[in-house]
């Protein structure tokens, strides 16, 4: 059991690590959001793999479905925000959001 679990945990940690690095280093708003999506993939893989290793796939599946619904709602809101920011600042650069000027 532990071997299978370890195997999936290894890959989900790699996904989360890659996403976190991109969140810290990139400057394009859409790319930052792609990084958040990569982290979300790692988390859903972790949830389902843990359910699989513990013999609780059905419960893990229910949690993953909930997670995906929340993810879609988050993406829709965030992309609408990004479009509004673009209309306001005419750029997708995160550094231009550093000013609190109206």
């Amino acid at each position, binding site marked *: 059991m532990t071997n299978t679990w370890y195997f999936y945990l290894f890959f989900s940690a*790699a996904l989360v690590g890659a996403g976190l690095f991109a969140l810290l280093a990139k400057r*394009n708003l859409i790319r930052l959001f*792609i990084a958040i999506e*990569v982290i979300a993939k790692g988390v859903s893989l972790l949830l389902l793999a843990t359910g699989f290793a*513990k013999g609780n796939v059905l419960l893990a599946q229910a949690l993953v*479905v909930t997670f995906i619904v929340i993810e879609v709602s988050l*993406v829709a*809101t965030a992309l609408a925000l990004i*479009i509004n920011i673009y209309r306001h600042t005419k750029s997708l650069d995160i550094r231009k959001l550093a000013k609190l000027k109206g």
Partner: protein
Amino acid sequence: MIIQTALLVGLVLFSALAILLKDLLKAAISLAVASLLLGIVFFRLGAPYAGVFEISVVAGLITVLFILTIALTNTGEEVRESRLVNIVFPLFFVVFIVIDALVMKGLVQKIPALPAAAESGTFGDVLWKGRTLDLVGQIAVILAGVFSVLALFRKRDKHD
């Protein structure tokens, strides 16, 4: 196991490509391919409903939303990324994976095994009877998303 490993390696590679590729459209498409691979992994883990959701919603709907946003915000003016990132990222990633491989096994053995009750019934039973509150929460989250998008795209008043 070999197919599963290949799928997971492909998932990590396409996710890394989505972060590294310069063209945003290509990045969005490689994210969709990663979602597709994750959906297949879900199928093979015995979770067909999660797989269907992952493929149809994440690989389909979210990619469409991403491409729409990229099209709406496209002026040709690229955001200048730091060049150092593209050099540092592969290095960081390799180091991270090595540390991951060394540390994760020890970490997993330290997690106490929680008692897992045997599951009975179907996915529908578990979702509708066991996680009813989650479904109410899902409805609330979807409504919140809809209202926030409506609020963000409302027409501006003339005196604004």
